[in-house]
């Protein structure tokens, strides 16, 4: 790890100012990606601004058909929340399947979505449920938030403060994990919401999370596993690596979609 300055953020605004004033400064949430990156000397920040002390960024609330999760809320807190389990069980299940217990007790939803690893779980839930990302500057629809592999709509100095999920009629998440890292080789989140049907896929796409319109329309008219069984995604934009070829990932998208729908009930 290269040497850097460590700063504990006093407020979201202060943290925002700090990174705006220094191009080489970096925000630290749970650190589940960034700390290993530092340890491998793959990053050399001037300053690391730690958001961990900002209590108002952490917490879960459910009201008016919306589940709101603070950006610094740990995955384990979401997984174990009775309110989340009751309102959106698929979201609690997703959080409970991220990484391993150590990761779940350190990693945060804000850190995960701001990093936008194309194989992370949370992007599937955000897009699959049509969530809204709140930042210190504005609100961003999930569909607009994830812009590409490790890319988001966040401006310089913009910090995620919370994510609001509309409670769906039904939803299911099914992940085919990478056996080594436990990231998603393919993860499919399927939901029937007030605004219609959504199917979001993580892990498979080169550009990160994407929706499958054909599956959404099939489910719109017939919410059943059979409805998506015949729908396959093209391999062209899918990842191919030592863990899975694009062809296999495409196959898994259909299988996981069927299972996600079946689980949603």
């Amino acid at each position, binding site marked *: 790890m*290269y040497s850097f300055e460590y700063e504990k953020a006093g407020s979201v605004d202060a943290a925002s100012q700090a990174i705006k004033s220094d191009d080489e400064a970096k925000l630290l949430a749970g650190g589940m990606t960034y700390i290993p990156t530092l340890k*491998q*000397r793959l990053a050399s920040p001037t300053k690391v601004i730690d958001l961990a002390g900002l209590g108002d960024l952490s917490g879960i609330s459910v009201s008016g058909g919306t589940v709101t999760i603070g950006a610094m809320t740990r995955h384990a807190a979401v997984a174990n929340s009775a309110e989340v389990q009751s309102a959106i069980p698929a979201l609690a299940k997703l959080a409970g399947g991220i990484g391993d217990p150590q990761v779940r007790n350190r990693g945060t939803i804000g850190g995960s979505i701001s990093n936008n690893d194309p194989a992370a779980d949370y992007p599937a839930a955000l897009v699959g449920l049509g969530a809204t990302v709140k930042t210190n500057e504005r609100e961003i629809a999930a569909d607009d938030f994830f812009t590409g592999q490790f890319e988001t709509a966040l401006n310089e100095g913009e910090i995620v403060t919370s994510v609001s999920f509309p409670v769906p009629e039904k939803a299911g998440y099914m992940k085919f994990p990478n056996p*080594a890292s436990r990231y998603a080789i393919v993860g499919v989140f399927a939901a029937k919401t007030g605004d219609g049907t959504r199917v979001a896929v993580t892990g498979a796409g080169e550009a990160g999370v994407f929706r499958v319109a054909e599956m959404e329309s099939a489910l719109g008219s017939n919410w059943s596993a059979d409805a998506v069984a015949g729908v396959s995604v093209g391999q062209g934009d899918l990842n191919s690596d*030592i*863990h899975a070829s694009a062809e*296999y990932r495409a196959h898994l998208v259909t299988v996981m979609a069927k299972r996600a729908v079946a689980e949603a009930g």
Partner: protein
Amino acid sequence: MTTGIGARVLRKEDRRFITGNGNYVDDINVNGQYYAAFVRSPHPHAEIGSVDIAGAKASDGVIEVLTGAEVAADEIGGLPVGWGITQTNGEPMVEPAWPILAQGRVRFVGDAVAVVIAKSIDAARDAAEMVNVSYTPIPAVIATEDAPKDGAPQVWDEAPGNTSFDWEIGDKAAADQAFEGAHHVTKLELVNQRLVPNAMEPRAAIAEFNSVSGDLTLHATAQAPHAIRLLLGAFVLQQPEHKFRVISPDVGGGFGSKIYPYAEYAVLCWAARRMGCAIKWTADRSESFITDAHGRDHVSEAELALDADGKFLGLRVNTVANMGAYLSAFGPLVPTFLYATLFAGQYTTPAIYAHVKAVFTNTTPVDAYRGAGRPEATFLLERIVEKAAKETGIDPADIRRRNFIQPDQFPYATPVALTYDSGEYGATLDKALALADYTGFAARRDQSKTSGKLRGIGFSLPIEATGAAPSAIAGQLGARAGLYESAEVRFNPTGSVTVFSGSHSHGQGHATTFAQVVSDQLGVPIENVEVVQGDTSNSQFGMGTYGSRSLSVGGSAIVRACDKILAKGRKIAAHILEASADDIEFVDGNFQVKGTDKAMNIAEVAFAAYVPHNYPLPTGDPAQDENALEPGLNEQAFFDPLNFNFPNGAYICEVEIDPDTGVVQIVDFSAVDDVGNIINPMIVEGQVHGGIAQGVGQALYEGAVYDKETGQLLSGSMMDYTLPRADNLPMIKTGTTETPCPFNPLGVKGCGEIGTIGATPAVINAIIDALGDYGVTDISMPATPEVVWRAMQEGRA
């Protein structure tokens, strides 16, 4: 006695380990130590132009930067190979020099080019990035099967065709003749993929040189500290053994990868001596992945000839074995005498011939990894036997039964150089069939089918040679060292016992099992026995722990030392009890005069030996001193076994496959092993469980994947290299058959590797069985979900 041989004693060392009180190399710090960081090649094959160290040397906290030029100037030797192979044509193997820092050319990604020595780890690493090496990349050969091809890039000029050696064993003419008259011939091509050892504790070392005394001390993560001292001292550093101490404290796993005298240890020792200081280095995980010696990596084809009754008539094997870029210390031994000598398996196959070509590639060197050659042999043999069973329609258990070496045939000389010790292969198989409820399998398969799963059952009947080695035989076959073990058993004056052993536990539980042996032999409570290992200044000598040898060779040395203790103790007791030594018997820790109630506890005898007031001390008068004894009760022994021992077993695996995804779940695993007499059944079970987990790892999850173009190890992190986890395994059902080995006083056979050797083919055979309806007859490893899914797609087509 509840703590003696056969008792399920809890491990003495576990409290220390489980509470985080182990003492590993990285826990140790020497006053004023510097830290080393290595500059490593990013290229698989390149000429080294200039090495510009000026920037690094000027960097903050840097003490020194050394390169291959200084190694050459100081006339430091290359890393030695501990086993030489004589080729079929009578020539010695091609054995290129392996300088401890690269000179002229780098030959794999990770090859060490320079070392930076600095006041802190970070300073050393910062400066290592400033060493400017000008490389001219040259074509590299990465894949095993590519190495022998015409026109392949040449790793070594002196090894045309990238061949280190071309070697054979067995009677080719007899094997060829067996095939001529065969009723059926089963053919098989297979790859035994390369694995990364991944010990939990990375390698680490501290070298310390005392310029005043001339003493060099190396703390290192070593399975064989005396062997490291011997090889580094004599061949690399020219540091005499009396001025060279190697200390290996607690070691967190090795699986073979911590046997070898690595370049980093040599560099640290050389630099510490040159600079008169102490230097520490601990590998990070990325470094471990590319510099710990890898395992396996064979490409083979085999043919098995059978008669109309399913009797095996002959076996022919052709193997290309990847040595990596350099010959590691025991690399040449693995695909030869640890491999092809096992092709008889548990069977009476009369004619066997194997040809092995060992090749160089621009990859990390390959050496012994848990099982070392024997997993490759068993995988090949048990795959082809199972395939033959399927092709001939004979039940897989039955075809093996028809070919077993029978209990009355021991000692049994195989056509491939070994003489098996003992075994009841049929009885072992019967136990496994009962454990696995083989007769109920058809019903279970139907049950799985109703829930949409494909169920399969697979067999594997491993046998291996452990307890290396009869030194004279090993020497004839190319060993460049002896392979005995040594022990010292020291009674302390007040009755406790300290055992100094040349073996060195890196997880095996010697502190417990060796203490059980001593407790049993000497009749002292186990809590009064301490086992000391891992320091060349404590134990008189040792060849170390690997190849499942520690109990049968090291434990036997302890027994021999205990025998000497008892022989002397008997004389001391005879003197004090005023009886003839012939009338003294040793029972439950007491020397007693036969037929009387006169007795002394062994602790009292020990006390008398150290406080010799009533004691047969020498008088100086030869006439009286015939039965005189020196004070003290401390005996040493070396044990060189008369033969190897041959653990064997019967493994049966059941899998369920999800046809939608190709995911394989092991739903049942039965393992019955004959490891001879058992000292501690709990530890044997633990070794078998862990061994099976590793064998399952090779079958389903693990594989070192290189980019064939860039030579980079793509599976070079825990995020990409899949190790088996607890939820990948079922509850393993174990059992034993105990046929004592006649070649060591404990009657034991090795138990450390049999699980790994046996598990892999059982899992793969079960997968192929499950996919029978798809016409699948072979599957590559690791059998990942995609591999299985593809086999189903292709089978379906």
